[in-house]
C-alpha cells in the first residue's frame, strides 16, 4: 500500500482536498471517515460514551455494519438520474443508523459541547500556547511522539504552583477549578432576532471588560444534514430522509458560548441584562 492511499483513506476528500479521489477511493474513505457510517465515528462514540460514563453514545454497531451496502445514490424512479454509488443501508439497518446519528447528536449536546468541558479546552489551549516552544506542538515526528499527556499534565501542575512560570494563569484555572464561567449561550429566541447574536455579544463584552476576561466558543452545523440511500425490502432505493421521520427532524447541532472571568461574572451578567436587546438588534446593510 502506498502512503498516498493511506492519506486518502484516513483523511477523506474533505481534508485531503488537494488529492483526486476515484469513486471507489471516495467510498472506501467514507467507510473510515464518513459522517454517516464512518468507523472512526462509530469507534469514538462508543469509546467516549463508555469512558465518560454516559449512555447516549451507544448503538447496535454490529447490526449497522451487517446491513451496510454500496447502493446507487439516487432514489429509484428518478428518470435519467445519476448512477453514482454511495454508502447506504438495507432497510433492516435503518433503526441502527438512526441510533448512531441520535447518539452523535446527544454526545455533541451532552458531552463534546458541554459548557464546562469546552471552557476547560479553552484554558488548556491558553496554557499550551504559552508553554509550548513557539506556541505550537513540534511537527518533527519523533519530538511530537515524545510529548504525551504525562509531560503536559506534569507541566500544568508545576506551572500552577509557580507564579513566575509560563502559563501560570491558565494552569491555575485548570487545577484549582477557577475556570471562566458561562455568561451567555445561544438560544432560539435571540437567534430568531439575529443569527449573529452571540458573536455581537462577545464583541461588546470584549470592549466592555477587556479581551483577557472574555472567551468565545462556537460550533454550528459542520456536517449539515446526513442523507444516505436505503434499500427497501422491494429492492427500491430511497433517501434516508424520506423513510425516517427521526432523521428528517434530527436537529443540527449548534452551540455558542461566552465565558467570563468568575471575578467579573456578576457585573457582566448585570451589564448583559441591560444591553442584550440593543446589542443583538440586527443592523441594516449600508
Amino acid at each position, binding site marked *: 500500500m502506498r502512503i498516498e492511499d493511506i492519506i486518502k483513506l484516513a483523511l477523506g476528500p474533505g481534508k485531503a482536498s488537494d488529492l483526486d479521489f476515484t469513486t471507489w477511493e471516495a467510498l472506501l474513505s467514507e467507510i473510515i471517515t464518513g459522517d454517516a457510517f464512518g468507523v472512526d465515528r462509530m469507534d469514538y462514540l462508543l469509546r467516549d460514551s463508555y469512558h465518560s460514563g454516559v449512555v447516549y453514545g451507544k448503538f447496535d454497531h454490529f447490526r449497522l455494519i451487517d446491513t451496510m451496502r454500496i447502493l446507487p445514490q439516487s*432514489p429509484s424512479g*428518478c428518470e435519467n438520474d*445519476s448512477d453514482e454509488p*454511495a454508502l447506504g443501508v438495507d432497510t433492516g439497518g435503518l433503526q441502527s443508523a438512526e441510533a448512531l446519528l441520535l447518539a452523535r447528536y446527544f454526545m455533541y449536546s451532552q458531552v463534546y459541547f458541554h459548557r464546562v468541558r469546552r471552557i476547560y479546552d479553552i484554558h488548556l489551549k491558553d496554557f499550551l500556547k504559552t508553554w509550548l516552544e513557539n506556541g505550537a506542538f513540534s511537527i518533527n515526528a519523533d519530538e511530537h511522539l515524545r510529548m504525551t499527556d504525562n509531560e503536559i499534565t506534569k507541566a500544568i501542575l508545576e506551572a500552577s504552583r509557580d507564579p513566575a512560570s509560563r502559563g501560570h494563569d491558565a494552569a491555575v484555572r485548570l487545577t484549582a477549578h477557577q475556570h471562566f464561567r458561562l455568561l451567555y449561550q445561544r438560544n432560539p429566541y435571540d437567534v430568531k432576532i439575529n443569527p449573529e447574536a452571540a458573536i455581537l455579544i462577545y464583541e461588546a463584552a470584549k470592549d466592555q471588560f477587556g479581551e483577557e476576561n472574555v472567551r468565545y466558543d462556537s460550533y454550528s*452545523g459542520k456536517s449539515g444534514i446526513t442523507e444516505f440511500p436505503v434499500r427497501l425490502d422491494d429492492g427500491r432505493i*430511497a433517501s434516508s430522509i424520506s423513510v425516517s421521520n427521526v432523521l*428528517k427532524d434530527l436537529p443540527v447541532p449548534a452551540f455558542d458560548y461566552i465565558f467570563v472571568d468568575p471575578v467579573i461574572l456578576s457585573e457582566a451578567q448585570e451589564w448583559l441584562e441591560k444591553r442584550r436587546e440593543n446589542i443583538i438588534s*440586527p443592523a441594516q446593510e449600508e
Partner: protein
Amino acid sequence: MTRLQKTAVLTKLVERLRERGSWSGETHIQKAVYFLQELLKVPLEFNFILYKHGPFSFDLREELGAAYADGLLKLKAQPLPYGPSIVSTPETGDLQSRFSKTLRIYERQIDFVADRLGVKKVSELEGLATALYIKFNGAEAGDPAQELHRLKPHITVKQAESFVDELELLLEEGIGLLSEIGSV
C-alpha cells in the same frame, strides 16, 4: 462577503431555483453554487473538490448546516423514495431584506444560474459541473469528454461529449452576462 451575506445569496438562489421548478436538493444547490461562483464570479469563496456527483464543497455543506441551525433554510421531506428539498423559511425574508444591497448586486447572476440549471436533473448537473471543473482545473491538453468519462465512469463518452458541448454554450452566455454587468 460575510457569513450572513453568503447565506442571503444562498437563500435567494434556493428560492429562484424552486421558482424554475428545481427539486433543490443538496446536490442541485451544490452544483448551482459552483456555477455561480466559478462561472459568474460571485465571491462566495467556497472550496470545491471533485466528489459526490462532481464538484462538491464541504464548506458549503457546513454553511447550509449553519443555515438550518439558524432557521434560515429547512429541509422539506418528499414522498418516498425521493430525497428532501431545501426550502426557505419565514425568517428568510428578514435576512434578505437586511442584505438587499448584496442581493441586488448579484441578482442577475443568480437568475442566470436558476434559468439555466433550475430544470436540470442531478445526472445533468453532475455532467455539466464536472465538465466545468475540468475546464477550470487543467486537462486542457487532453479531450475533455474523455477526461469527464475517466473521472465519472458511469457517464458514457457520448454523454460526456454532449455535456462538454452544452457547457461551451453556457460559458459563452455567462461571459456575455459578465461583460454586460462589467465584471470582466
